């Protein structure tokens, strides 16, 4: 029984197969594009550009128009299995953000895509863009000009600062996913060769962030009651419903007893 504020973050970072300076070396310049159930361990590349170079940091390039599932897309940090809710869980997905600004993020619940174009077709751009919901909020633009000038700060999420309103309700048993799509017109990070891929700062790291309320256990039953009654699934409403339950219980304790019980002889 709990109501917990959860978040998940994806980045397109690979993990070196070799994390040792001294022999034995597994190999140089070899990376796993995906790492399961954790984030990759990284470090500054050793003597980059020399014969003794060893790579400990690299972002995985994402092709133009490629769509990557942030849970199971085989790039960056992934999960073993897709996101699926247990019979006693609800998720209220109310926050999504993506970077760079030329990437888009789409929420998928079962077979339905959340963002759609005005003609009713699922968003051809791949959802909401990083220009609207940059991650982090205030992230610098990733354009080459900005890089050259070393600008700090920049894009602000104004319209979706309160998250998705109304939020996406994911029900028990539902399967869900979030996909990001590269709409930059080039492979990301563009204008970078292999040297750029292994020396990039945060500005070259694609990322996607989601924030959600996980309701599980007995609170899931309360959530179902709220949905049945047409109430928004918020922390405050869940609390309030539980207060009412407790209050009803107290009222029940105050109710008059039937006469036959009230007048019955007391037995010790």
């Amino acid at each position: 029984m709990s109501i917990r504020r959860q978040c998940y973050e994806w980045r397109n970072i690979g993990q070196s197969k070799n994390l040792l300076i001294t022999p034995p070396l597994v190999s140089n310049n070899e990376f796993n594009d995906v790492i399961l159930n954790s984030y990759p361990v990284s470090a500054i590349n050793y003597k980059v550009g020399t014969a003794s170079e060893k790579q400990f940091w690299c972002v995985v390039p994402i092709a133009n128009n490629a769509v990557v599932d942030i849970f199971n897309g085989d790039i960056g940090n992934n999960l073993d299995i897709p996101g699926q809710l247990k019979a006693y869980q609800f998720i209220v997905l109310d926050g999504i953000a993506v970077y760079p600004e030329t990437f888009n993020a789409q929420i998928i619940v079962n077979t339905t895509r959340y963002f759609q174009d005005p003609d009713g077709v699922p968003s051809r751009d791949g959802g909401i863009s990083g220009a609207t919901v940059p991650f982090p909020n205030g992230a610098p633009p990733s354009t080459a000009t900005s890089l050259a000038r070393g600008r700090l700060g920049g894009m602000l999420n104004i319209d979706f600062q309160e998250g998705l309103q109304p939020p996406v309700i994911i029900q028990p048993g539902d399967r869900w996913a979030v996909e990001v799509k590269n709409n930059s017109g080039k492979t990301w990070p563009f204008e970078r060769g292999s040297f750029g891929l292994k020396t990039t700062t945060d500005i070259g790291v694609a990322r996607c962030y989601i924030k959600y309320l996980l309701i599980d256990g007995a609170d899931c039953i309360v959530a179902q009651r709220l949905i049945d009654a047409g109430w928004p699934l918020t922390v405050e409403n869940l609390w309030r419903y539980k207060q009412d339950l407790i209050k009803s219980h107290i009222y029940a304790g105050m109710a008059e007893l039937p006469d036959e019980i009230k007048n019955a002889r007391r037995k010790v």
Partner: protein
Amino acid sequence: MRKQIYTWELHGDDTDGRLASSQGHYPPVGTENSILSGAFGNVQPARQTALVGEDEFIVIEKIGCTPGISPYGFRVDGAGNLVKWNPNMFINIVIDTTNYYQDPQNVWSSGVSGYASPYPIQTFDNPYYELWPPVYVLPDQTVDVRYTLFNDIQLSAENNDWTNIPYSTILAAVYVEYTLFDGTDGLMARKLMNLGIPVNVGTVENYRRLLLKSKGLETETFEFYLEAMRSERERRKRERKNQGVATQQDYDGDL
């Protein structure tokens, strides 16, 4: 009732940070370490996890940590001192043996990143993550906050990009903000939780006022509890109206 903060910081050790010159000062990457009882950084001298006393109640309201992903976000001054480092860190809350954060496949996760909830917050930061609802830690429970670093400072030091990591450089930091309800306030907090009322400074103060007004529990207990809940709801409604965030329900009446 006291608003508390606890910060943990990992400073440089005035060496170049290589494995040969700095043994045991920097936490191993990819592993969880406690900000209260771990072996690294400025932990409390006693190195104990926080055990909430039997007359205490803790409400954790905010956590944050150093932002930054790429190890190439480092900066070195003209004298060869490392002055900025991206730890690529995540933080997690652990109560007794339970992790607060789990991933979408319902297993343990590293927690919240510094980008989602940065510390310190700079002018261009506008954090997405907010710990809402807050986390209650009940009497006799232990609470721990653990961090995981994913950028290896010592492996990076081998590349000779800097000659010294001064003590003044903070490589990683964690921030925790919570309210400590102690003594009778702790007992009242527990009672409010049992009644399903959110525990915060306002609700505990209101409950205390009620207790004083009723001079203890001489009135019928059931009626008292009902009055407590009704009063809290009214107080909350008034507060929302005063703050200008009341909704239609607050005005139409809902009981």
